[in-house]
């Protein structure tokens, strides 16, 4: 800039000297040419400078930005709840080269104890060698691993890990590292285990309940002919008085055996004696929720949509929790079974409502095969079943439970497809 000004100043002075016009013209032309060249050069230099400057600035910015990014990423990895680790895949024994905070917390090892160590050593000596071998093999095949494995902390405490290990490739596709993420799923597993146990227990109680009912009905059926046989024989004995001693002897054998059979039935009955119901104040919606929670897995496996439509703020009822759960389970099982062969909508909806001032109504509605009209009068008869492996006890036992609770239970076809089973249960009278 400065240069340019001086030259044009000089030129301006030269212009004023008249005598030398011509020669000057040549000089000027030369100068002009010169100046143009100079300007070009300057421009070029300037551009170069600007470019360089820009480049410099860009580079610096880029570097700052890159640093920021790395910082954020590291921070993010450090704050993640999951344990994150990186394994160097190019070294012989797969050493760990990075672990985040959570990883240290989960394993109980300090960073300095971990870095450089072989990843698998961290599993502890109690770890299942088969599982470890499987992970190793997957990695060696350059594949990703995904699985739930038991892990042992530094202090030997066992916990469950949901582990995912993924290969990291460089620009040429060669595997340089593995990145691993592990989540402590011990709590989830425990919760699931608890649900599974409760489900098993309810299924068991329901099955035993049905069987008990089955056997006691059977006992009744058998005790009928035993009664008449006994009475026939005792009548005959009396009629013979002291005639026909041989016949009387035979009759006494019949009576003995009859009573032996009766004794077996009597013992069976005492064995099946129901425990006293445990009546408590219950919230019916909570009870249904608890029951449904136990069978959501079954619903998923059966591809059934379990819907709930609850009236809120329902008053409490007085009932035996386990017995009422059995009723629900019996009704829902029937719906499951009715949905087995239906292809389109597979849905069970459970509704609660206030039927009137002192009654709650619970409905289990399905979109299953429905009931043939001729079966409807027989549904509550013991032993009536349309299923190859059914006992025909579910509905009759459910009805007797509900009636013992002072309610009613019935089943009917829906206007559309499927069946609705419903029961009513009286509301608790204030203080029980």
């Amino acid at each position, binding site marked *: 800039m400065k240069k340019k000004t001086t030259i044009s100043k000089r030129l301006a002075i030269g212009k004023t000297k008249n005598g030398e016009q011509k020669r000057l013209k040549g000089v000027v032309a030369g100068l002009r040419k010169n100046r143009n060249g100079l300007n070009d050069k300057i421009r070029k230099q300037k551009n170069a400078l600007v470019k360089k400057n820009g480049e410099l600035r860009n580079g610096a910015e880029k570097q700052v930005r890159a640093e920021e990014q790395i910082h954020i990423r590291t921070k993010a990895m450090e704050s993640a709840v999951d344990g994150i680790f990186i394994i160097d895949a190019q070294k012989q024994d797969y050493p760990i080269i990075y672990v985040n905070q959570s990883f240290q917390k989960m394993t109980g090892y300090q960073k300095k104890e971990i870095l450089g160590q072989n990843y698998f050593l961290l599993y502890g000596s109690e770890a299942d060698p088969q599982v470890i071998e499987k992970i190793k093999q997957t990695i060696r095949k350059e594949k990703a691993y995904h699985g739930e494995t038991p892990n042992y902390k530094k202090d030997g405490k066992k916990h469950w890990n949901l582990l995912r290990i993924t290969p990291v490739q460089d620009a040429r596709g060669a595997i340089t590292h593995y990145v691993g993420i592990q989540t402590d799923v011990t709590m989830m597993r425990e919760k699931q285990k608890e649900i599974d146990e409760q489900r098993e227990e309810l299924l068991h109680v329901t099955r035993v309940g049905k069987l008990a009912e089955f056997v*006691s009905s059977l*006992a*009744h*059926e058998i*005790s*009928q*002919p*035993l*009664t*008449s*046989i*006994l*009475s*026939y024989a*005792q*009548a*005959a004995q*009396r*009629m013979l008085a002291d005639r026909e001693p041989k016949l009387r002897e035979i009759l006494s054998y019949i009576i003995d055996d*009859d*009573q032996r059979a*009766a004794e077996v039935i*009597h013992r069976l*009955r*005492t064995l099946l*004696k129901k425990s006293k119901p445990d009546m408590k104040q219950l919230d019916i919606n909570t009870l249904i929720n608890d029951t449904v929670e136990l069978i959501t897995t079954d619903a998923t496996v059966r591809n059934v949509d379990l819907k709930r439509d609850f009236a809120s703020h329902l008053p409490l009822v007085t009932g035996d929790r386990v017995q009422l759960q059995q009723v629900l389970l019996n009704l829902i099982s029937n719906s499951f079974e009715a949905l087995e062969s239906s292809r389109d909508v597979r849905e069970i909806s459970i509704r609660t409502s206030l039927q009137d001032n002192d009654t709650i109504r619970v409905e289990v509605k399905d979109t299953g095969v429905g009931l043939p009209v001729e079966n409807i009068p027989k549904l509550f008869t013991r032993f009536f079943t349309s299923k190859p492996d059914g006992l025909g006890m579910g509905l009759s036992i459910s009805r007797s439970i509900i009636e013992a609770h002072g309610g009613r239970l019935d089943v009917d076809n829906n206007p559309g497809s499927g069946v609705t089973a419903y029961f009513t249960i009286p509301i608790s009278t204030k203080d029980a």
Partner: protein
Amino acid sequence: MTAHQPLIYVVDDNVSICRALKLLLQAYGFKVETFTKAADFLAYKHPRQQSCLVLDIRLPDIDGLALQEIMAKKGITIPIIFITGHGDIPMSVKTMKAGAIDFLPKPVTKMKLLNAITLAISKSQAQLKKQAEIDKIKRRVKTLSPKELEVFQLVAKGMLSKQIAYKRGTSLQTIKVHRSRVMQKMQAETVTDLIRFAQMAGLTSSQN
């Protein structure tokens, strides 16, 4: 007729049990009527004689417990022995509270059944005796004139002759005459007898 031969009703929906119990009880010298429905038993005209009912607790039309209630309401006082093929303990408690003689699980042995029947028949006999007495009293009441009946009721309520005379606006003497006629006709020796007879004839409530 054989008035000394007690009558046993058997109600059980199982035909074979009815037949077998009938044979057994007949062999022991009882008269037996069997029914497979509770309604048939209710429709039957029960002769007034020593009797008892052997009743299955589970019946298709009216169950045993309900039948027990209906009988109580209708004033059918025949003693009941329940038999059951189920081991219903809670039910047995209910029936016994409602006055059943016994609650026997099936198969019922002859010993247990006959013991229960003996008990039931003696209860029936006592009832019959009481009923006969009531009938006798009622027959005596029928012989009273309307005025005598009124005096009878007032005396039974515990009113003194003076009070009755004041209330009726008649002389004490007249009331005393009525009163002695009542005592005579009712064959009562004391006022206490009169009060008891009035209760038995259903002329006063037993709560005084």
